């Protein structure tokens, strides 16, 4: 206990001290230079710590991972594109890619469409904040806990499985929701959408609030009905927000791991790239293959990120 307080004190005092110390030091160093050179060098000196962090924790590991992906399981000998050839040569991995595609399409569709629908609908009721809080609530649950909850929901026994109890009322036999491909994928996607719809709703709702009511009233005066107002005024104006939310959801769909790990562990053909990466590294102890999967994942995410950043820059330019 004593030690912990000491640590906290050191961190609280030490970290700001180091930062201030660094700034003072750089200014001292700068004073040794001729004045004309100072302004050119100062930003780089100030940026240096941040660049060092990015380099050590982001760029170096990325390069290292790419190198590892060309090595064998124990990272000892160079095997070229061997890992990639093996990955794409295995039918099971094609299922993994198809699953991720299912995630991208259906998870994104579910969260964005429902998020938008709820944002628009709650915007018109008096109990808006309560409704939105309830929808957002699952976001506060850890994904592991959510996975366990939903595994119970999908349990075969109607005694435990809420879904089977529900369909039982309709006279349908209990189903093995998490066993059969591709249905099991959709079941996990639904659980994920339950968590993430609230997030989409909040962002989209903020975008919606940014549209002035006078604009919608002007539309109504111009003769638009509520559908026309939604599709011809609200949607075009929210397009940038929708794009951001959609890309964020696609990136999440590509990276999805915890729910799959908890609910099926990737069995019954529900495996996805991130879980593949994990099992190759920590179950199969094949770091080469794991790195190759990571690189594939990265390659898929980069264009979406690039789109997002470009979009963001355009937005900034408009402002």
């Amino acid at each position, binding site marked *: 206990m004593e030690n912990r307080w000491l640590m906290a004190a050191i961190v609280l005092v030490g970290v700001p001290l180091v930062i201030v110390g660094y700034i003072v030091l750089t200014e001292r160093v700068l004073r040794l230079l001729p004045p004309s050179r100072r302004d050119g060098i100062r930003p780089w000196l100030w940026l240096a710590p941040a660049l060092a962090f990015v380099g050590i924790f982001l760029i170096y590991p990325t390069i290292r991972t790419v190198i590892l992906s060309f090595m064998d399981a124990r990272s000892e000998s160079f095997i070229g594109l061997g890992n990639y050839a093996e990955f794409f040569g295995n039918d099971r991995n094609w299922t993994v890619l198809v699953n991720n595609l299912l995630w991208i399409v259906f998870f994104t569709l579910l969260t964005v469409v429902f998020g938008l629908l709820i944002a628009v609908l709650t915007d018109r009721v008096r109990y808006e904040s309560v409704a939105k809080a309830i929808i957002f609530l699952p976001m506060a649950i850890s994904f592991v806990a959510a996975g366990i909850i939903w595994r119970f929901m999908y349990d075969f026994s109607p005694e435990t499985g809420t879904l089977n109890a529900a369909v039982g009322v309709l006279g349908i036999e209990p189903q093995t929701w998490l066993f059969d491909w591709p249905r099991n994928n959709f079941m996990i996607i639904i659980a994920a959408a339950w968590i993430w719809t609230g997030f989409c709703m909040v962002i989209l709702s903020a975008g919606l609030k940014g549209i*002035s009511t*006078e*604009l919608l*009233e*002007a*539309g*109504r*005066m*111009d*003769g*638009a*009905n509520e559908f*026309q107002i939604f599709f*011809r*005024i609200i949607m*075009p*104006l929210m397009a940038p927000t929708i794009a951001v939310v959609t890309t964020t959801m696609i990136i999440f769909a590509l990276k999805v791991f915890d729910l799959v790990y908890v609910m099926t562990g990737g069995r019954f053909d529900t495996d996805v790239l991130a879980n593949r990466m994990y099992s190759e590294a920590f179950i199969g102890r094949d770091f080469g293959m794991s790195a190759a999967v990571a690189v594939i994942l990265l390659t898929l995410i980069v264009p979406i990120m690039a789109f997002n950043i470009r979009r963001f820059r355009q937005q900034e330019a*408009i402002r």
Partner: protein
Amino acid sequence: MATVTFDHVYKRYSADVVAVNDLNLEIADGEFLVLVGPSGCGKTTALRCVAGLETISDGKLYIGDRVVNDVAPKDRDIAMVFQSYALYPHMSVYDNLAFGLKLRKTPKADIERRVKEAAGILGLERFLDRKPKALSGGQRQRVALGRAIVREPSVFLMDEPLSNLDAKLRVQTRAEIARLHQRLGTTTVYVTHDQVEAMTMGDRIAVMKDGLLHQVGTPQELYDHPTNVFVAGFIGSPAMNFATVKATEGEDLMLGSAKLNLSGAAAKAAADRPKGADLLIGFRPEHLDIADGQADTVSIPARVDVVEYLGNEELIHAQAEGTEIVALIPSDRRVKPGDQVNLGVPLEKLHMFDPESEQSLVA
């Protein structure tokens, strides 16, 4: 073309919050009526009731002969210009103007003709391809007007359309809207809090306060014969001076220790009051001048505090028996701060109000 009629219209948000209280008002076909009043007086709510953006709590609202209480905004044959212009930011100026016509399935050739025509009237031809973002405030304002014009509605509603413009542009656009009204002759309901706008633009002005309609009339009627203290103080710039005086046994009034000699209608109103009763008199700064004993003029002794030189006129701030008086007099009177002067107001320009009911006693 159409008339607009408020028949005992109420708008209540709750039992305590009554935005529009028993509004009775007939707006003639082709008339330019200005709803004016301080913020929160219910003028915008009244306008939004006509637009159909607010539902009426009680009473009847007519456009032409039709009761429109339950008619959707788009079916009321009206167009509105919003304070913020409310232009669709994702559409070009052309599409902004054409949007309402497109929704009404107007033939394409027709749309093009009408948009071009409206753009011509407002000088917007060069900007038809631009987005609203690329326009100045004045140009946006004209697009908002154009959007109303192309629809060729029977009533225009305008909600403080000039309040986002700078002073110079406001004066220009004011004239432009007046010209537009002369040209199109469309019934217009115009909301503003600026009494100068109201006076310069309106065929008639309706003055509102706290949800109540205080007086309706032509600008001159409101200026010459305000029916109560609020209208008297609200219309005219600089605002009317008020002073509390006491009735005497005869036809005279006492302002502190100074005696004001009256005659005519004012004297009669004063004589009706019991001795010692309070009375509120009002007189406009521009009707005051340095008195030199003319007949039919009330003379008020005052000490000059501040003189604001305006060119051909001077704005005098003076004290008369503890009452602050503002007077607008010709500069050649050469008044200096500290001077003791007699400020005269012609009897026919003197207003008298009951201090309790605040109603005019001479109007």
